[in-house]
């Protein structure tokens, strides 16, 4: 059990590709941290740096308060679950699970005891004599997990461990993984590009993009108060709508003038904006999540905007409605009972207290006050 600290770590590969740029990341003891980002954002490299499979170009890495920057992987007391599982094909399941214990020269009786207990807790006891190639994807996944937890390491590292499972099993394993981590109380760092996985598993999510840490916060905060346009757009399905326009004062209120229509800002949003911002006619991006948009057959021109249904996706539990407003297209969510026809004229309410404003140039938030 230990905390992990990456202190201004940079990893530059041969040929000048910078995979991780000046990363400062602190993971507390027993915490479940998810590194989230699109492919090529540096999240796997970050994990490999912690594992010792890569050495940082600059910066330091600490595990449990000990400097491990140049310590070899086998001396870091960590365990890792690979995306490919990386089971040893020539060994039986039981030998696979026992391997880390054998490498650490544990006595035979202890090895046997621990292997059987671990196998029991993951419900793979009946598979112990089989070879990896005789297992299904889900079973291999469990064996890989068993091999990681058998030794009680200081830190678990997981590199997209669920991405090779089918959708149903993935949801099941997600819950089990979370329970397992809480039960064992081992610091866990988990890499994924799947935002649902990140939101459901993490105590804190670290969103990376182009090698740079964008935001590091609990899932709810990432969702409610994204620090910049990238984070806002990356988290949430369907993704947040972005409308570009200029801020203009309107009496006591502030209005966003978009192309062909305007949106009155919610008074709560006004308060979050600094005084100076209200007087300038600033280029901004207005962000609103599909679930925060209201749709109606009729509306008042003061708060509502007229649009046309461009298309509808029926998802069963809800309908995703694509609405064309002048030259802008937005996505809104309607209840499953509301069936809109293509081409139908409707009204949408884009004013919401949960909407976000971003500086068009820097893409940084203008409204999220916290963190």
């Amino acid at each position: 059990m230990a905390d992990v600290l990456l202190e201004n770590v940079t990893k530059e590969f041969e040929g000048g590709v910078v995979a991780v740029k000046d990363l400062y990341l602190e993971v507390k003891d027993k915490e479940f941290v998810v590194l989230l980002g699109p492919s090529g954002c540096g999240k796997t490299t970050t994990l490999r740096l912690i594992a010792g499979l890569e050495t940082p170009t600059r910066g330091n890495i600490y595990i449990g308060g000990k400097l491990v920057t140049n310590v070899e992987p086998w001396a870091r007391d960590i365990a890792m679950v690979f995306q490919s599982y990386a089971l040893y094909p020539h060994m039986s399941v039981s030998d696979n699970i026992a391997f880390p214990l054998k490498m650490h020269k544990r006595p035979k009786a202890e090895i046997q005891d621990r292997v059987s207990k671990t196998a029991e807790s993951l419900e793979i006891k009946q598979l112990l004599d089989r070879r990896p190639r005789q297992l299904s994807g889900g079973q291999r996944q469990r064996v890989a997990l068993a091999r990681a937890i058998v030794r009680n390491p200081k830190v678990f590292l997981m590199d997209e461990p669920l991405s090779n499972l089918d959708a149903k099993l993935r949801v099941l394993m997600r819950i089990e993984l979370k329970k397992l981590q809480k039960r064992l109380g081992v610091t866990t760092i988990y890499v994924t590009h799947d935002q649902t996985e990140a939101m459901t598993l993490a105590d804190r999510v670290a969103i990376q993009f182009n090698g740079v840490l964008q935001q590091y916060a609990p899932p709810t905060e990432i969702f409610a108060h994204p620090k910049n346009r990238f984070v806002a757009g990356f988290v949430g399905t369907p993704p947040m709508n972005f409308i570009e326009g200029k801020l203009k004062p309107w009496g006591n209120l502030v209005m966003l003038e978009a192309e062909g229509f305007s949106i009155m800002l919610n008074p709560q949003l006004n308060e979050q904006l600094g005084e100076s911002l209200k007087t300038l006619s600033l280029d901004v991006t207005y962000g609103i999540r599909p679930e925060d948009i209201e749709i109606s057959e009729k509306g008042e021109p003061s708060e509502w905007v007229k649009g046309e249904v461009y298309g509808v996706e029926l998802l069963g539990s809800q309908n995703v409605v694509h609405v064309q407003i002048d030259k802008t297209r937005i996505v809104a969510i309607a209840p499953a009972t509301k069936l809109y026809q293509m081409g139908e004229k409707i009204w949408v309410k884009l004013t919401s207290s949960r909407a976000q404003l971003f500086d068009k140039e820097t893409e940084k938030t203008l409204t999220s006050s916290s963190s």
Partner: protein
Amino acid sequence: MSHIKKLRQRIAVRFQKISKKRLMFGISKNLLAIILELAIIFPIIWIVSASLRSYNSLLTTTLQIIPPNPTLDAYYWVIFQSSFWTWLRNSLFVTLFTAGLVLLVASPAAYAMSRFTFLAKKPLLYSLVFIQFVPGLLMFIAFFYLLIFFGLYDNLFGLVLIYTAFLLPFNIWNLKAFFDTIPKDIDEAALIDGASYLGAMFYVVFPVSLPGIAVTAFFSFLTAWNEFIVASIVLASEENYTIPIGLYRLNQTTYQTNWPLFSALSVLASIPIVIVFMIAQRYLRAGLAIGAVKG
């Protein structure tokens, strides 16, 4: 109605044509295979047949596969009256040491070439290919001087060193290509599980690479077992002869080539190869790596 009939007839004719074509193809394919097989097997049958003849009956003009009065005289002579056992011992010494030494050097070298980046890796790899462009006998003059310098002339171990040197470039490439097919994830998993680089190599990568290692060992064994020219130059004294040299000198002891003796020794010399092949074959099955990663 009538045009349906016509159509049917046309289909029938066409079908006949195809089946005739197929039949002809089938026959000629198998005939070719039989001829090729005979061409390969015939010399072996002939050697076995020759080894069972007496000295006089070999030179008959009639072609007989089964000799008129089969006898094991030649085998008896080779086994009990020639230096067969010395030659066999020498051959086994040379081949086993060569195969062992090649494995000992080529495996870690190939592993390093496959997994690590280091200074001048590419030039090193390409120089291994380039070395193979140079005819072996050209290099032999240098080898010869080296052997004399180190006092290894007429020494079996000198022969082992030369064979190893000849075999290494190809086998390093061969093994590297094999290691390249093994996912790097499993070495990394081993490193994280507590194995050192050497540990990961011995406990995980080598066992998974058994087919590749078996090919290397078998190839080295075969080459060293059959090699004649280098051995005939390096080995001078009779107690150091390997089987190919023994086979050659056997002919020189009599005025005329004694074909039954020659054949009997040839048959005996091929037995170890067959045994080694049978052992190696078990490990030559590919697909041992299936199941390591997702599949």
